[in-house]
């Protein structure tokens, strides 16, 4: 079933067009990878899905993004609610300068959870969900900034899980990490897709083939091709895609 349907999406930074007539549907409880050379609009596209682009002045968006059939850019759409449903993990781990516990409890708290016991539970479940619990359970009230990069990134994932979103957006979540952390996070993604609809941007084609069900190839703000991952990497329909994945450029 299609969880997200994007139709005729154009996005402009001021005069400059960064996305050009994108049409793409993303299936529920699957992983979609976005690949393409730097500057092709992957992050821009991702951020259009939870309206993070609203924060940037002079952005103009045309077309539609429907989640469960509802247009998220409709005037009566509630952006705060939307972002609760659509969680996001960023390229560089960005924990708050608070304790590990407070980082994970942050989301539930702002959404009104005050019961201490309930919070404890949520924090534990989320950290377990992000395969971090065992490593941090003895230092929950230490600063999150003392964690390693890979741990921080898993903390950020736990923080998102704690608000129980339906969709997970991940923008190059492993690009700042070492190989071992990367492997852990890739394993985590494979687990999470049983519960969440995941869209992941990566510059690493190997990663895309390892974790994703479908892959979309972007080039210069356009969606060149989208297909089942194994097909796209072995029998791409377009010449441009073949050039890119065979390493002709990028």
């Amino acid at each position, binding site marked *: 079933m299609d969880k997200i349907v994007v139709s005729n999406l154009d996005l402009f930074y001021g005069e400059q067009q960064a996305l050009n007539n994108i049409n793409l549907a993303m299936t529920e409880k699957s992983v979609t990878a976005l690949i393409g050379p730097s500057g092709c609009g992957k992050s821009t596209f991702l951020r259009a899905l*939870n309206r*993070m682009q609203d*924060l940037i*002045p002079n952005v103009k968006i045309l077309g539609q993004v429907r989640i469960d059939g509802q247009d998220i850019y409709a005037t009566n759409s509630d952006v*705060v*609610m*939307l*972002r*609760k*449903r659509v*969680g*996001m993990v*960023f390229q*560089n781990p*960005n*924990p*708050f*300068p*608070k304790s590990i516990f407070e980082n994970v409890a*942050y*989301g539930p*708290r*702002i*959404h009104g959870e005050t019961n201490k016991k309930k919070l404890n539970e949520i924090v534990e479940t989320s950290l377990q969900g992000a395969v971090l619990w065992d490593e941090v359970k003895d230092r929950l009230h*230490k*600063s*999150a*900034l*003392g964690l*390693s990069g890979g741990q921080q990134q898993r903390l*950020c994932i736990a*923080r*998102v899980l704690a*608000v129980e979103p339906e969709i997970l957006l991940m923008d190059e979540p492993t690009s700042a990490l070492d190989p071992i952390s990367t492997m852990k996070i890739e394993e985590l993604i494979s687990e999470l897709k049983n519960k969440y609809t995941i869209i992941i941007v990566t510059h690493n084609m190997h990663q895309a083939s390892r974790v994703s069900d479908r892959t979309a190839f972007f080039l210069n703000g356009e969606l060149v091709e989208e297909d089942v991952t194994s097909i796209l990497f072995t029998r791409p329909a377009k010449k441009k895609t073949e050039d890119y994945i065979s390493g002709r450029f990028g």
Partner: protein
Amino acid sequence: MKARQTDRLASVMLWVGAIAIIVLLVAFLGLILGRGLPYLTPDFFNGPDGVRGQLFNSFYLLALSLVFSLPVGVGAGIYMAEYAPQNKLTDLIRLSTESLATVPSIVFGLFGMIIFVNKLGLGFTILGGAATLALLNLPILVRVTEESLRAVPRSYREASLALGATMWQTLYRVILPTALPGLITGITLVAGRALGETAILIFTAGMNVSRILFDTNPLAAGETLAVHLFAAKSNPLPGTNADQIADGTAALLILMVIVFNICLTLPSRWLQYRLLGKNKG
């Protein structure tokens, strides 16, 4: 080689410049403290011409003026840093706060005198002095708030908003706590200036001290230490030991500023330490 020699010469010159600055500072402090410290006996505070009242007034006025200026200044700073769209109106607000920052304090003093002393008919009051002093604080607070908020990494903001927090939740749960050390530094700056201000207070808060110790009536006149120093210098009243009062008060003022700095920066260092945790290594 020439470039190498110039480099060495320039380094020497810069060290000399820096040492000159430090020497200047040390000389200044040494002069003032050297002259004044010997007079800082218990009598200096509690004696017949003791300055305990002025000391109290200094902090009382400072506190009141912060009560007036902090909410507005920090509020405006937050607006400029977080909300302000880039348009003409924002530009105008920014222009006006920046120009408020350069208004000579004597102009504030006159303005305050006419508003509070004459138009409102309050006479010389701590209230009027504090309100006018608040005008002096405002632009600095706006500027400092804006700068320390801007120094908070964008990623915190994005992380919070992406979790479905509102702007206000993001502000008071993440951004403000992170920016707090910067804010505190700013407040220290403001406090230092306010503690040393005279031109404004002479025209608004008057030059005498309540006989009631720790008189918190905001409608009483209130001479501060800086004004007291000014008065002792300009009208060395016969029968008092004006020079001693002046020297002692000057030293006391400097001590206060130093203590104030320490009192506010130590907790903020501690806070920063708490926030950022131990070194990652």
